[in-house]
C-alpha cells in the first residue's frame, strides 16, 4: 500500500497501542489518546450524509416550529408573530379533529387487517414448493406498482359508467351505476381495500421469510409428542414469529401514517371532507390555501405524535437489524 510517511506513522502508533491492549476500543484511562486526526476522520466521513439529512429533516422541523407561531402566507408576504393562535385553531377546529381521528382510524384498521391477512397468506406461502416460488413473485406485483398509478387504475375500475367493477357486479344482479367514491362509507372501504391490495403482500413476504427461518426441530418434537396443529401454532410457531410480526407492524404503521397518494387521487379528501386524512389536510391548508402558519402547527402536532413511534422503531427494527447486537 502506498502511503506517505507522516500519516503512516500516526496510524501505526494508534494501531500499536490498540494491539497491545487487544481489540477493545480506545477509551479507558492510561491509554494513549487518539490523535485529533484519527478522532475526526469518522466525522469527516459522516458529514455529507448528515448534511443531507439535517437539511431535509431537522431544518424543516425547525422551520415548522418557527412558522407555527406566525401567520405567514406563501403569496401574501411576511406575517407576524401570533403566539399560540395556530395551535388553538388546530386543536379546536372540528375538521382538524376529524382529520386526526380518521387518520388514526385508517392506520389502525388498515394495519390490523393487513397483519391478519398477511399472516394467513404467509402460512401457505412459506412451504418451499415450486408453485410457491411463482406465488411469491405474483404476490409482489401489487406491492411493486407505483402508488399513484394504483390509485388511478382503481379509480377507473370504479368508474360508475365505464368501470369493470360496476359492470361485472351488475351482471351478478347488483345495482348498476353506483358511485362507490361518492358515498363516505363506501369511499372509506375502497381506500382501505386499495391499501390492503398494495401492502398486505409486503407483510406476507416478511412473515413468509420469518416462517422459513424458524428451525424445524421444535415442531417435529411437538408432533412426536402428539400436539394438535392448533397447539403447535399457538405454542411454537406463533411465539417464534413475534419478532417478525413486530417488525412488520412497526414498519407498516409508520408507512401508513405517510399515506397520501391514494387519498389524493382516489377521493381528494371527499366526498365533502369525509376522507381528508391529516396528510391531505396539511397539504390543502399549506400548499393550496397557503396558510403556512396553520399548516405548520398541524405539522408540529403530527410530528410529535409520530415521534412516539421512534422507540419502537429503534428497539424492534434497529436492534434486530444491527449485526453488532447479535
Amino acid at each position, binding site marked *: *500500500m502506498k*502511503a506517505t510517511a507522516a500519516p*503512516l506513522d500516526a496510524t501505526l502508533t494508534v*494501531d500499536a497501542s490498540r494491539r497491545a491492549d487487544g*481489540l477493545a*476500543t*480506545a477509551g479507558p484511562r492510561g491509554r494513549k489518546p487518539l490523535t485529533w486526526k*484519527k478522532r475526526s476522520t*469518522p466525522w469527516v*466521513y*459522516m458529514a*455529507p*450524509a*448528515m*448534511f*443531507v439529512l439535517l*437539511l431535509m*429533516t431537522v*431544518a*424543516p*422541523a425547525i422551520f415548522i416550529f418557527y412558522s407555527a407561531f406566525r401567520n405567514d402566507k*406563501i403569496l401574501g408576504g411576511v406575517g407576524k408573530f401570533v403566539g399560540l393562535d395556530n395551535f388553538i385553531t388546530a386543536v379546536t377546529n372540528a375538521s382538524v379533529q376529524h382529520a386526526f381521528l380518521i387518520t388514526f382510524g385508517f392506520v389502525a384498521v388498515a394495519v390490523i387487517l393487513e397483519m391478519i*391477512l398477511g399472516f394467513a397468506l404467509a*402460512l*401457505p406461502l*412459506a*412451504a418451499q*414448493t415450486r408453485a410457491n416460488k411463482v*406465488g411469491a413473485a405474483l404476490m*409482489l406485483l401489487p406491492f*411493486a*406498482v*407505483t402508488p*399513484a*398509478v394504483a390509485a388511478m*387504475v382503481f379509480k*377507473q*375500475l370504479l368508474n360508475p*359508467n365505464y368501470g369493470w367493477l360496476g*359492470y361485472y357486479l351488475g351482471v351478478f344482479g347488483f345495482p348498476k351505476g353506483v358511485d362507490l367514491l361518492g358515498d363516505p362509507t363506501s369511499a372509506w372501504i375502497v381506500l382501505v381495500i386499495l391499501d390492503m391490495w398494495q401492502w398486505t403482500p*409486503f407483510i406476507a413476504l416478511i412473515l413468509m*421469510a420469518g416462517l*422459513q427461518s424458524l428451525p*424445524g426441530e421444535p415442531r417435529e418434537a411437538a408432533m412426536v409428542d402428539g400436539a394438535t396443529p392448533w397447539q403447535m401454532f399457538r405454542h411454537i410457531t406463533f411465539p417464534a414469529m413475534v419478532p417478525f410480526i413486530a417488525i412488520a407492524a412497526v*414498519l407498516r404503521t409508520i408507512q401508513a401514517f405517510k399515506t*397520501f*397518494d391514494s387519498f*389524493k*387521487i382516489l377521493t381528494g379528501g371527499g366526498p365533502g371532507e369525509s376522507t381528508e386524512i391529516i396528510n391531505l389536510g396539511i*397539504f390543502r391548508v*399549506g*400548499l393550496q390555501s397557503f396558510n403556512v402558519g396553520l399548516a*405548520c402547527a398541524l*405539522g408540529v402536532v*403530527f*410530528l410529535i405524535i*409520530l415521534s412516539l413511534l421512534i422507540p419502537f422503531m429503534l428497539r424492534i*427494527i*434497529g436492534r434486530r437489524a*444491527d449485526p453488532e447486537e447479535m
Partner: protein
Amino acid sequence: MTTTSSTSRGGTVARVIIGRTFLWAWLLVGLVPLLFMFITSIKPAGIANQIPPAWIFQPTLDNYASVLSAGGGKSESFGQLLTNSAIVSLGATALAIVVGVPAAYALTMRDFRARKGLSSWILSTYMFPPIVAVIPVFVFAGKLGLMDTYPALIIPYAAFNLPIVVWILRSSILQLPYEIQEAAMVDGASTGNVLRRIIWPLLVPSVATAAVLTIVLSWNEFLFALSLTRSGAKTAPVGLQQFTGMYGTDWGNITAAATLIVAPILVLMVVLRRQMVAGLTFGAVK
C-alpha cells in the same frame, strides 16, 4: 417444509387446502387491476372504455405511440416525463450512495464513540413524515429559485432513502471480517484506502441492492413531485394525473402511460424480490 410436514394428520389436510385456496384466490384477484391496466392499454381507439368490456380485439400499440409522442398540444410529452423521472431517480440514487457509503463506513469504525447514537438517529429519521418537510422545502426552493428543477426533487429523495441505504451498507460492512481491515491498517493503509480498496469491492452487491431500492422509491414518489414541479421537472406519476384533462380521459392513453410507469419497476422488484424485502426492513428480515 413447515406446512407439508403436518399433512400427515388427517384434519390438517383440509386446513392446508383452505390456506392454499385463499392464497391463490388472493393472488388471482390481486392481478385484476394490473390485467385491466395492460389489456386496456393495447385496445384499439374507441373500444377502451366500451361497456361491456371487449375481450376479443386486435391488440395495438397505438396508445403507446400516441402517449410517447408530444401530444395534446402541451409542452411536454409523456416520454419527457419518463425521462424526468429517470433523471431524478438516478440522481437521488447517486447522491444517496455517494454520501451513504462513507457514512456507513464511519458508523462501523470501532474508535468512533458516537456511532451508536448516530446510527439510531439516522434510523429514526425514517419516521419523519414527508408532508412535514414539503412546506419548508417548498418555501426554500422558491427562495433559492430551485422550484421545478431536478435538485428540488433529488435532494429530498436522497434524504428520505438515506436511512435505508446507510443501514443496509452499515450492516454489510459489519458482517465483513474485521481482520481484513485490521491487517490493511497494520500494513499502513489509511482509512480512505481501506474503504476504497478493501471494503468497496466487497460492498458492491449491497450497494446494488440499496441503489435499486432508492431508484424504485424515488420513481414512485408523488407528494414532492406534485408540490415542487410544474413542467420542467415534472415526473411521470404526476403527469399521469393530468391525462384526464389533457386528453379528455382517453382510457387507452392513460393505461398505456400507467403501464410505462409501472413496467420497469415491476421487473426490478420481481427479479430482486428477496433483497427488496430485506432492504425495506433495514435488514431486520433476511
